[in-house]
């Protein structure tokens, strides 16, 4: 397993074959690598796939003085621990060990975000030159970078250039031509536990893999699949020592190794930038930067969040989507024209009552399933997706993650959990899948429970907002109770499931104006996805209800649920809506919406109904995903907790409102 892998790119001789020195360019995507590559090599380049992959890479030649070099432009990479195939290819090219100079190209404006990779490359003992590209843009923004100090801190040559204008490229060529591998580069200290593991594992790492033994050991403890596989496959070596060291490290470390290493690298990058990178003076700080800071500070971030929720969800989705558009489609189109027409046709031409009931009448495929999907759910989901796409495209969501981190930590989650929680407002089923990205098992269980319990999906949320829009008091009771239950259950679960409170950090991308084209595309694709998915399910639900009706089981279940409805103070007709909720949450919400439009619910009943339905047992699809992600036992435990809990809370709210005599 110790043989060296040649690049062997098609379309031209490799450096080994041609005997030329090799320059390898690495860096994040979109930092101007290709522009620099073209500037160095001219117009003659060979673009080919890396062997065994579909990943493209470019190769060309560059003359510096009298010497000719082979230049390779690698696919974008963010870290030496690869996640995508492109990163794996770039890492493999570096591991070939044939590079005489590695140019790490970074965007000078975003040095802090990109310096972690520089530190990894330096630590791997690669012949790195740091290239600060787009320096002209950075200077225009008022950014100042002390390149001499940066060289000193990193122990490698640093050159500021503009690949587009050519500024600094000559200086870069000189640095390449005169490159000498530094005798000593600064080493990052990862703390006693990780250093212990590195000291134990580095000496047994191979020396001929292009990266330093310490870097290989670091990749190994971070769970790099390729390195782990190679080490385990080494002939004649027992893996006992390796396994024992890794197990001990995992036990002693409070958080996952990859996370701990990323945090230390990030902190080291921040420390270096503090001394070498001068951001624009505060008076020239752009409005976008100020707004960005405001969104993340609790004092200003919470009012901004409330404004986003008020205008984005309440006014646009609740009032416009669930009010104006649904009224038009349901009351003016379906109720006045379509349903009477379908029922008339069925009465005239279909003599069999069961067939009439399957297609039309009260619970038919068209009169119920399609009506719910097109007249109620579609406008609500559509407006929600427009609002969500705008929010998403601005880059507000990562800022929201940092803002809620503080609250989430109190209940045992970190800000990363805002991703599944936010997705839950779109679809709880898919969001449950995303909980696997959370760092610890404890976090994953808490997030799964909270998603199943207290996060309404987009359609359910829209329908609920539409229902309570005319009764702000009922909306207040619903919102207050849901927030209280979310925090209370989360807090209790975190206490019942002891574990560490994880830290959270994430790189925040720049805030920007939403781009109409991108918003349109996101909304269109989301609506297409949603419509394709829900329409068949709504039709299926109608068929199942029809089957239940002709076999009389529907009436039995409704009659049984009616007792529960009575206990929580709802009319017995609401039982049908809750039965719908088993199929899909939004189907149940649409049933309640129908009931409310018919004037069958008082303000108090409305509040109780929406609270109970929001907490209600997850839909079939979400339950199946819960089973898949957390196991059958945990999924059943969560469902068994939620079902009585939802009705208990509904009953309590009803009793409280009755006791206090409050009429919403």
């Amino acid at each position: 397993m110790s043989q060296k892998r040649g690049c062997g790119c098609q379309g031209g001789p490799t450096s080994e074959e041609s005997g030329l020195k090799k320059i390898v360019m690495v860096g994040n995507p979109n930092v101007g690598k290709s522009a620099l590559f073209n500037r160095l090599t001219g117009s003659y380049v060979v673009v080919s796939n890396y062997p065994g992959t579909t990943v493209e890479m470019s190769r060309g030649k560059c003359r510096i003085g009298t010497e000719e070099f082979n230049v390779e432009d690698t696919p974008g990479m963010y870290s030496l621990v690869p996640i995508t195939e492109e990163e794996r290819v770039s890492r493999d090219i570096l591991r070939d060990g044939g590079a005489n100079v590695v140019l790490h190209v970074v965007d000078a404006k975003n040095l802090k975000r990109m310096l972690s990779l520089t530190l990894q490359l330096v630590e791997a003992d690669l012949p790195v030159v740091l290239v600060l590209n787009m320096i002209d843009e950075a200077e225009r923004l008022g950014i100042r970078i002390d390149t001499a100090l940066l060289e000193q801190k990193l122990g490698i040559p640093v050159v500021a250039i503009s690949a587009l204008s050519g500024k600094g490229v000559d200086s870069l060529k000189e640095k390449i031509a005169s490159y000498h591998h530094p005798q000593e580069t600064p080493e990052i200290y990862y703390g006693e536990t990780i250093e212990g593991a590195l000291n134990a594992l580095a000496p047994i790492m191979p020396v001929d893999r292009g990266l330093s033994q310490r870097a290989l050991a670091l990749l190994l403890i971070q769970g790099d699949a390729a390195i782990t596989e190679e080490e385990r496959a080494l002939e004649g070596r027992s893996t006992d020592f390796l396994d024992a060291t890794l197990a001990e490290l995992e036990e002693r470390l409070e958080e996952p190794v990859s996370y701990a290493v990323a945090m230390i690298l990030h902190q080291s990058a921040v420390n270096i930038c503090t001394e070498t990178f001068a951001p624009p003076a505060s008076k020239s700080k752009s409005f976008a930067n100020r707004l960005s800071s405001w969104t993340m500070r609790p004092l200003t971030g919470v009012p901004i969040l409330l404004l986003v929720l008020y205008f984005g969800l309440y006014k646009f989705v609740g009032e416009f989507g669930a009010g104006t558009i649904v009224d038009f489609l349901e009351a003016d189109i379906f109720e006045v024209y379509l349903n009477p027409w379908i029922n008339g046709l069925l009465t005239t031409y279909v003599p069999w009552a069961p067939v009439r009931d399957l297609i039309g009448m009260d619970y038919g495929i068209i009169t119920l399933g399609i009506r719910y999907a097109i007249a109620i759910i579609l406008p609500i989901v559509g407006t929600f997706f427009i609002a969500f796409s705008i929010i998403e495209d601005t880059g507000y969501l990562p800022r929201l993650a940092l803002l809620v981190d503080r609250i989430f930590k109190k209940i045992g989650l970190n800000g990363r959990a805002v991703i599944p929680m936010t997705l839950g407002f779109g679809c709880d089923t898919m969001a449950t899948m995303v909980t696997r990205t959370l760092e610890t098992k404890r976090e994953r269980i808490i997030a799964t429970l909270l998603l199943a319990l207290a996060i309404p999906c987009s359609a359910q949320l829209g329908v609920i907002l539409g229902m309570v829009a005319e009764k702000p008091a009922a909306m207040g009771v619903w919102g207050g109770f849901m927030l209280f239950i979310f925090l209370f259950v989360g807090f209790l679960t975190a206490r019942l499931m002891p574990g560490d409170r994880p830290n959270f950090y994430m790189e925040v991308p720049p805030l920007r104006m939403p781009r109409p084209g991108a918003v349109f595309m996101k909304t269109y694709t989301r609506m297409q996805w949603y419509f394709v998915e829900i329409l068949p399910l709504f039709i299926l639900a109608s068929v199942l209800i029809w089957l239940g009706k002709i076999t009389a089981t529907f009436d039995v279940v409704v009659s049984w649920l009616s007792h529960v409805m009575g206990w929580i103070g709802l009319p017995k007709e609401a039982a049908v809506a809750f039965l719908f909720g088993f199929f899909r949450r939004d189907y149940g919400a649409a049933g309640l919406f129908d009931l409310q439009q018919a004037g069958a619910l008082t303000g108090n009943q409305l509040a109780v109904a929406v609270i109970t339905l929001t907490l209600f047992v997850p839909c079939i699809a979400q339950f199946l995903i819960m089973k898949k992600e957390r196991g059958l036992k945990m999924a059943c435990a969560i469902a068994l907790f939620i079902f009585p809990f939802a009705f208990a809370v509904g009953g309590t709210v009803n009793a409280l409102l009755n006791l206090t005599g409050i009429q919403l």
Partner: protein
Amino acid sequence: MICPFCRKEFVAKDAKKECRSCSSFGGCQKVKCPFCGYESPREPEFVETLRELKKKFRRKTDADK
């Protein structure tokens, strides 16, 4: 494509790997960012093609300068 949450760039093929364990029978129109796990709608193919063409064009014009 670029993840709307973390803004890291990835290709649809890498995102597909994340879908293996999904129960949506591969029918959903979403992709999951391999870096942060965030799900977003899959870009229509023509958008991806246009993006690639733009990249190639930029590469060519850079080279011609």
